[in-house]
């Protein structure tokens, strides 16, 4: 069942057939992955051949939609290693998942309480905490980053105190590719609620949130080869039970009246309104497909390509990688700076050669400040990436530098 990573895998990703005939080296997987055929089929199948709203109707089409939606929940529970399907809240993406947690926990915050985020975070894991900390009089502090772009956990050890209520960190940095040591963070802050942003980790294989020891975990469908518009918030049963609702609307209630409203149990309490049914079914199909793959082979492939990329960049004059040296505890996400040439100009010119890179702050301005750069270019790998993609970047870059510097 498992396909070899690299070129053979492209048969399963319709974009490659669509782009055939033009140079196409997609190295922007950190921004969004390409959709896998089974996810596209599940999405389109629902939308065009079996659409009905879920959780409400009793006629055949509606009942089938509800069954499919339940099955999607079970699939995501399996992918994450959740204790039960009831721990899976469907959202529109990682950002929404993190907002549900942050706003949900807001009522527990007392003046002087501390929320610990980090300099490595995506804005999605900073701004929601700032939004809720302010009114509560709580303080958001940031775990610093080491010079090579990892969480500085020694600093965390010194930061945690009895006022530290929440620690919210990324599982994998979307800039440096560094993998956080969640078990150690858990040990350093045993009493804090531990929230993990898994957006960049989810595309790299099934998870075990229970073993990880965190309380909440967030991910996005579009980064794990599912459709845009869906995501998951996982919450440990008792944590989710204790969380008040954030969004109001249909499906999240038990009883509504102008005299007072009571709320449904999790996960429904957090799923107000018609969910993104098609995207959710597509995401679950992608997750089931990912669970069938040979992840040791895929990880080895990513490591090989990552090394080729890191070594190649190191050999180009004036190029500086921001991130860990090797591929230990690091995924194939590589941000770099080119002396005297702006990332946007690099990405624009490489784009003409079919090399798709992201340039900018990657929604991680505090990290950019830490590195003292305005913007970097970033290449991010997926299992369908191959050496040609990496080489197209490595060959194109010196030409671009020559032209623009």
């Amino acid at each position: 069942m498992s396909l070899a990573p690299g070129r053979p895998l492209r048969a399963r990703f319709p974009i490659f057939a669509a782009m055939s005939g033009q140079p196409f080296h997609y190295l922007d997987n950190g921004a969004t992955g390409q959709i896998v055929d089974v996810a596209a089929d599940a999405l389109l199948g629902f939308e065009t051949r079996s659409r009905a709203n879920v959780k409400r109707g009793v006629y055949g089409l509606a009942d089938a939609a509800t069954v499919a939606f339940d099955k999607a929940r079970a699939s995501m529970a399996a992918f994450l290693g959740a204790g039960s399907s009831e721990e899976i809240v469907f959202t529109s993406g990682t950002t929404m998942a993190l907002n549900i947690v942050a706003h949900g926990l807001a009522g527990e915050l007392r003046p002087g309480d501390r929320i610990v985020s980090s300099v490595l975070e995506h804005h999605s894991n900073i701004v929601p905490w700032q939004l809720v900390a302010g009114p509560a009089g709580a303080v958001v502090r940031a775990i610093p980053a080491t010079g090579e772009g990892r969480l500085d956990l020694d600093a965390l050890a010194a930061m945690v105190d009895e006022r530290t209520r929440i620690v919210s960190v990324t599982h994998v940095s979307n800039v440096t590719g560094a993998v956080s040591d969640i078990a150690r963070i858990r040990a350093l802050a045993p009493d804090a609620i531990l929230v993990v942003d898994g957006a960049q980790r989810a595309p790299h294989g099934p998870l075990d949130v229970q073993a990880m020891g965190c309380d909440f975990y967030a991910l996005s469908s579009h980064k794990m080869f599912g459709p845009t518009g869906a995501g998951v918030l996982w919450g440990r049963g008792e944590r989710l039970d204790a969380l008040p609702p954030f969004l109001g609307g249909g499906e999240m209630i038990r009883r509504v009246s102008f005299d007072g409203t009571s709320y449904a149990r999790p996960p429904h309490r957090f799923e107000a309104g018609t969910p993104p049914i098609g995207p959710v079914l597509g995401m679950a199909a992608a997750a089931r497909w990912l669970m069938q793959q040979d992840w040791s082979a895929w990880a080895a492939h990513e490591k090989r390509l990552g090394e080729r990329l890191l070594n190649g960049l190191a050999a180009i004059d004036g190029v500086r990688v921001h991130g860990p040296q090797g591929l230990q505890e690091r995924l194939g996400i590589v941000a770099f700076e080119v002396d005297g040439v702006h990332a946007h100009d690099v990405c624009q010119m490489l784009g003409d050669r079919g090399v798709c890179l992201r340039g900018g702050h990657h929604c991680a301005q505090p990290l950019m400040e830490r590195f003292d750069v305005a913007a970097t270019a970033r290449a991010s790998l997926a299992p369908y990436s191959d050496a040609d993609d990496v080489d197209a970047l490595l060959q194109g870059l010196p030409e671009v530098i020559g032209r623009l510097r």
Partner: protein
Amino acid sequence: MSEDLYQEALVAMAKSGIGAGRLEAPDGTATADNPLCGDRVTVDVRMDGGRVRELAHKTRGCLLTQAAAACVADHVPGMDADDAASLAEAVRRWLAGEGDPPAGLEIMEPVRAVRSRHECVLIAYEALRDALGNAGTSR
């Protein structure tokens, strides 16, 4: 399919009115809602040591909910409280495809195939479980 669902035995059970009404000064009482449709079952229990002595229910619901509530009233009195409280989980598992039907629910076999109607059956058992939970303190 619905012809199976609404077989005569089920419709008869639903209309039987077994246990319909309220108990005066019950040892335990609880209400369960079906958030999908607003249906609601209230179960009252009177205990006798560790056993359910008497039970009544007030039910606003579809035929499935009515039949399930009647079924609770028909089979639960005389049962050990813990056994009765565990029925909700047994019903949930049975509906999900595991195990045999709890006593009386044989007539509901076809409901298992209709996901959206599972709650209709469940809420009577949830109200029972919660009523026993309340009664627990006064046992």
